[in-house]
């Protein structure tokens, strides 16, 4: 086994409680980071879901012909901002109306299909496109008027809905990010303190290594490897605990949220998401470990 790796492992074995304390805190940190990553993913999906829920309805003039309607439908289908374009004929509109007024059949019988305009209904890929799309639609010759169905928390106007959604996203990101940063900062400090204690306990070894001609990098490496071991164990445990917990609660959560895609339903996509989170955490962790150990080493160097 490589000397530096062996040295790092010996050091961990020599002070198991310091190692356990560091690993425990890092596990908690990365547990929270993993949960926040999943919550962040899910919230973005929820917001996206709500963002794309509002439907734009282009009510068509009675003079619109099949060809002009078909041309507009085709044009909308090719628009990257728009999805799920659906044509609703006068008859279908009446049927929808009757379904909606099923509790009061008289209301349904009083109207005939001619008073309902045909329409083209569609969703948007991003709520921020709504204003532009609506303005463009109004200029179409066969479009009589444009309706926008958006309602969240009582707001009715497009601007209110957009602002409300943006606010929710911002608070989620700010709150979660602050909490994660707080934990990462605390873990970083604990890592630096733990490694500082390690370096202090290895002062004799460092002195011997210096005297027999060890390069600085040779002396530093075991400390860096040791911190990387802590971080990687912390990352793996935190990630694994979250994965197991989410696998446990996922069926109930998916069932509760219904069609809102809070988590990928395809197992491949699900594990890809967790794979990306693990990779991101490992890279962040290694950066944290390298920074922490270098800081601890430079502090020890200054104290010498």
């Amino acid at each position, binding site marked *: 086994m490589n*000397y530096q790796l062996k040295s790092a492992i*010996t050091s961990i074995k*020599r002070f198991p409680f310091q190692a356990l304390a560091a690993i425990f805190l890092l596990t908690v940190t990365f547990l929270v980071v993993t949960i926040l990553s999943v919550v962040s993913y899910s919230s973005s999906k929820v917001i996206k879901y709500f963002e794309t829920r509002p439907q734009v309805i282009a009510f068509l003039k009675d003079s619109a012909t099949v060809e002009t309607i078909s041309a507009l439908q085709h044009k909308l289908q090719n628009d990257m901002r728009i999805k799920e374009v659906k044509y609703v004929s006068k008859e279908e509109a009446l049927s929808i109306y009757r379904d909606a007024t099923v509790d009061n059949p008289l209301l349904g019988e009083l109207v005939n299909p001619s008073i309902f305009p045909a329409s083209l209904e569609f969703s948007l890929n991003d709520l921020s496109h709504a204003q532009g799309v609506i303005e463009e639609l109004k200029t179409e010759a066969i479009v009589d008027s444009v309706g926008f169905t958006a309602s969240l928390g009582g707001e009715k106007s497009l601007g209110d809905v957009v602002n409300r959604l943006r606010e929710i996203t911002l608070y989620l990101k700010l709150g979660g990010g602050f909490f994660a940063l707080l934990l990462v900062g605390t873990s970083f400090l604990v890592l630096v303190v733990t490694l500082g204690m390690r370096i202090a306990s290895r002062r*004799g*070894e460092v*002195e*011997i*290594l*210096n*005297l*027999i*001609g*060890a*390069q*600085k990098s*040779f002396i530093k490496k075991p400390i860096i490897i040791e911190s990387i071991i802590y971080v990687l164990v912390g990352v793996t445990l935190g990630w694994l605990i979250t994965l197991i917990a989410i696998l446990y609660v996922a069926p109930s959560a998916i069932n509760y949220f219904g069609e809102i895609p809070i988590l990928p339903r395809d197992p491949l996509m699900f594990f890809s998401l967790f794979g990306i989170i693990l990779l991101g955490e490992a890279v962040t962790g290694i950066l944290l470990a390298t920074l922490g150990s270098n800081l601890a080493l430079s502090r020890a160097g200054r104290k010498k």
Partner: protein
Amino acid sequence: MVKFKLVTKTYGEVCALKDVSFEVKDGEFIFLMGPSGAGKTTILKLILKEIFPDTGEIHVGGVDVSKVSEKDLPGFRQKVGCVFQDFKLLNERTTYENIEIALAVLDVPESKWKERIEKILKMVGLFDRKNLFPSQLSGGEIQMASLARALVVNPDLILADEPTGNLDWDKADEIMELLEGVNKEGKTVIVATHNKEIVNKMKKRIIKLASGKIIKE
């Protein structure tokens, strides 16, 4: 190999060396003799650039030690094998691992470690003690392990600070025989000691020190 020119070293108000000059040629074996506080260890520490002289020049292997930069210091020290007065073995590592470190520091390929370590362990008579920790070794064995670590890197210069301190005659003699054997292979050996019997028996060049000055050479 080693040249001191008017070297003075003080520790606060205590003068450890005062205008010391001497030269040790390549392949020579010399003893630095004198009572405690004479300046023997200070000379060895100056050679290793563990401490710096106040005045004077020190040359080791043709290199002016004062000009060895921080960056080049490890490479400089790698050419010197040291047996320290307090052994400086790592207590949480076995005899084998303590010797292994010296090779790791030199970046010797791992494939060559076993052969070299076992050879040196047999040479110092510690082969059957290779898996024991320093705390499980006797005083003489610890000294031998320290010597083995110094020799395994095949240095040009060997510094030994009281290598026979507190050892019985047989063990001390054994260590001196090993150092003499290494010297016969062309290595320069500088031994700091106060053991007159050993020095008289070896019949090598002697530099006598007292109160930081050379009193007899």
